[in-house]
């Protein structure tokens, strides 16, 4: 076997943390990780947030983000230990031998400069190519990555192209200097599933055609299975399992890897609709001030008591706008909302306190939905005071009951949000909404910001609580696996319209309309060769038409 291009030995990485109420101190976030990467191969680094995967990826460029410092070990690139290199040598390595593709291309492109200037900058600066050669190469890469109008797209500014296109431009930026290694850090995570599949295929083909080696970092095992030769599973800065992709997916040895492979184990029996829906949205049309088009067009859906309606769609489909209309934050221009046997006022000011109490909401970002200066007990106790005027020892008892319901317990009562993990924060938000004894809760992407295993726990909790409290959920999400797990009925939204609506079994069974088919087939599956199958299938279909 040839010498590895990247050889990492016993890599240790530390950081300084500033916990609230304590003195800043140093912690170790990666505890001695070792791996090899041969030229032209792809290694997937997978793990939940805090696993240290991005940190390891950046360490291969001798870079520490924020206060992160590499404290020990060796990182060999092309036969030299870059942790012992001079500042100048490291600068010559970055952007020439090793390049980086970040999660958010939208934030990683300089808004003040044209795309082409940024794509060729490293190649020109590192004297790999002349400006003219680099531009020629960039245009070839734009074409290879399937960008529209490859000859001219470089003349645009970043805000003038879409998110998916910008992510491909970022890949072109990384490939332009002909590096030996590219670090892909969650390159498709911020994209819609239907966009993700194109970008994923473009990245995979670019890796194959240019023969570059890659570190592919993601939390999504199904995605990494499509592109990598080997996979390393990381957890809390330790290596859990490191093997060929085939083995990790089909016969994982470690318990943690098995759990990752089998997430979404939730089974939920679909319930039949009742005669009397708790929420009835009738022909709602809405637009935002200053926009000259409707964001919602004639939307009609029903939600039955004690059941879950999943509203699914990509960004811009209008699903969150629907939530704003139902809560009264955005008065609709047309249509009617019936709730618990009465017609709701269109705007928030016209709603009674009873309306507000019976219709609660949980948000995607639990940490910004809570006052950071209030304790968990205060946060959960507030709706008890506000709606029921419960105070003193009775309030305390109710808070403890609620904390037990969300599986946290009394000891969390005096903690502040900053002391909770992401999953625990979301649980507190759930308890706060339950404290109002609502008939219905709108859940807006409540698990999107959470790691898969934590998200699973939240979904299980929501289903259990539904059985106990008989509360209905309007569940807004872009994640079809979540939809399958918890819904009784589904509304698929596309460009402000309800594309497909019915019970879960109806919506998820063929024959599909074109959009639902595209959406469903774009969800990555945990098997090797899935990406090629889908792409080949689509090519065949479009050739047939």
């Amino acid at each position, binding site marked *: 076997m040839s010498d590895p291009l990247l050889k990492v030995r016993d890599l240790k990485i530390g950081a300084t943390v500033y916990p609230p109420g304590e003195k800043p101190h140093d912690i170790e976030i990666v505890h001695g990780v070792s791996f090899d990467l041969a030229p032209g191969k792809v290694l997937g680094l997978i793990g939940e947030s805090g696993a240290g995967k991005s940190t390891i990826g950046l360490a291969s*460029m001798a870079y520490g983000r924020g206060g992160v410092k590499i404290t020990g070990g060796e990182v060999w690139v092309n036969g030299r230990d870059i942790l012992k290199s001079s500042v100048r040598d490291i600068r010559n*390595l970055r952007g020439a031998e090793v390049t980086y593709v970040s999660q958010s291309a939208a934030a*990683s492109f*300089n*808004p003040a*400069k044209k795309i082409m200037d940024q794509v060729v900058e*490293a190649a020109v*600066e590192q004297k790999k190519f002349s400006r003219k050669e680099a531009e020629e190469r960039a245009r070839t890469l734009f074409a290879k990555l399937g960008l529209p109008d490859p000859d001219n797209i470089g003349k*645009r*500014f970043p805000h003038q192209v879409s998110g998916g296109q910008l992510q491909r431009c970022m890949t072109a930026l990384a490939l332009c200097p002909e590096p030996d290694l590219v670090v892909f850090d969650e390159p498709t995570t911020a994209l819609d599933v239907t966009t993700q599949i194109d970008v994923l295929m473009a990245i995979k083909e670019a890796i194959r055609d240019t023969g570059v080696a890659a570190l592919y970092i993601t939390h999504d095992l199904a995605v990494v299975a499509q592109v990598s030769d080997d996979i390393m599973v990381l957890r809390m800065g330790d290596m859990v399992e490191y093997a060929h992709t085939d083995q990790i997916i089909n016969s994982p040895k470690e318990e943690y890897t098995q759990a990752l492979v089998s997430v979404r184990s939730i089974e939920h029996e679909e319930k039949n609709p009742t005669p009397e829906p708790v929420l009835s949205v009738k022909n709602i049309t809405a637009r935002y001030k200053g926009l000259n088009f409707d964001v919602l067009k004639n939307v009609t859906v029903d939600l039955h008591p004690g059941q879950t309606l999943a509203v699914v769609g990509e960004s811009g489909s209008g699903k969150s706008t629907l939530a704003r209309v139902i809560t009264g934050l955005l008065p609709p221009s047309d249509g009617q909302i019936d709730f618990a046997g009465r017609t709701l006022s269109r705007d928030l000011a016209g709603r009674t306190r009873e309306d507000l109490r019976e219709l609660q909401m949980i948000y995607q970002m639990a940490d910004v939905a809570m006052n950071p200066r209030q304790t968990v007990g205060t946060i959960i106790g507030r709706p008890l005071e506000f709606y029921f005027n419960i105070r003193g020892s009775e309030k305390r008892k109710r808070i403890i009951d609620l904390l037990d319901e969300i599986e946290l317990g009394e000891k969390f009562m005096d903690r502040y949000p900053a002391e909770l993990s992401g999953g625990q924060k979301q649980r507190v938000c759930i308890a706060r909404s339950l404290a109002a004894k609502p008939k219905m809760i709108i859940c807006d992407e409540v698990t999107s910001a959470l790691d898969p295993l934590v998200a699973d726990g939240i979904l299980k909790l929501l289903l259990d609580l539904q059985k106990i409290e008989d509360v209905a959920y309007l569940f807004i999400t872009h994640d079809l696996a979540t939809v399958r797990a918890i819904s009784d009925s589904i509304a698929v939204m596309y460009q402000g319209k309800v594309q497909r609506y019915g019970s879960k079994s109806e919506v998820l069974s063929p024959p599909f309309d074109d959009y639902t088919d595209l959406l469903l087939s774009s969800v990555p599956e945990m098997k090797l060769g899935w990406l090629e199958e889908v792409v080949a299938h689509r090519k065949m279909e479009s050739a047939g038409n």
Partner: protein
Amino acid sequence: MHPVVKLVAQRLALSLLLLLAASILIFAGTMILPGDVAQSILGQSATPESLANLREELGLNDPPVTRYFDWLFGAMQGDLGTALTNGRDIAESIGQRLSNTLFLAFWAAIISVPLAILLGLIAVRYKDRWPDKLISGVTLASISIPEFLIGYLLMYYLAVQLGWFPSVAMINDGMSLGQKLQSIALPVIVLTLVVLAHMMRMTRAAILNVMQSAYVETAELKGLSGFQVIYRHAFPNAIAPIVNVVMINLAYLVVGVVVIEVVFVYPGMGQYLVDHVSKRDVPVVQACGLIFAAVYILLNMIADIVSILANPRLRHPK
């Protein structure tokens, strides 16, 4: 219409409106000052008849609104009236004074603005290390010392002890540019020291704010050097706040130099204003107020327009 044209037109219209409002305030302000112009011209011993005659002659008996519009239309045509104290045409006297003030402000700006931005960039590059601390320390110290004290200190050492520059900054039309520059060297140094800290700190803060962005990380991972990252990627995105603070300081150089002009006996607007305030020469005070307001509004409008033009989202809409 291109959205930038519309935004710029809005700013222009708004500035004119603001100037109009300022003119009303200035006029109203001088109106409610105690004292009577006719009385102050003629002195305590004036007879009631001569007072009444003069009031009639100056139009002081007209209603205030009429007098305001007379004054405003005159000012728009360049006629600022005549000074009560010496009967000279105000526009003429101000013309010379204003060009002197602008001459001083111009050279102070030419030195202080690039210097402040350069020092800001250096402070960012060596953040929390000794160059940053030295720059911050020296500029903050210079802004904290009253400007007249700096003025007298420099005068003592550079003019009296070393004899490099004249201690009194007199200029006249007969001097060559070199002679003029030597003459105003001391006030320029003092003004530079006064405005440097503010602009330097703002440059530093604005760029440091941008340095947190993901695209700065991208630039670092391209292998660019520290200075390349700062001036190619961070600086273009920090222009708007920097231009704003630069313009406020330029305005200060024009309208706030009263103390320096008095210290160095420089024949500029500030001294002219101070002289005539003490003599209750209302038309001169009004004229100076209007010009200062115009300078302030003009410079801030330029800052606004530069901020608009510096934003690629506005310059190149989707």
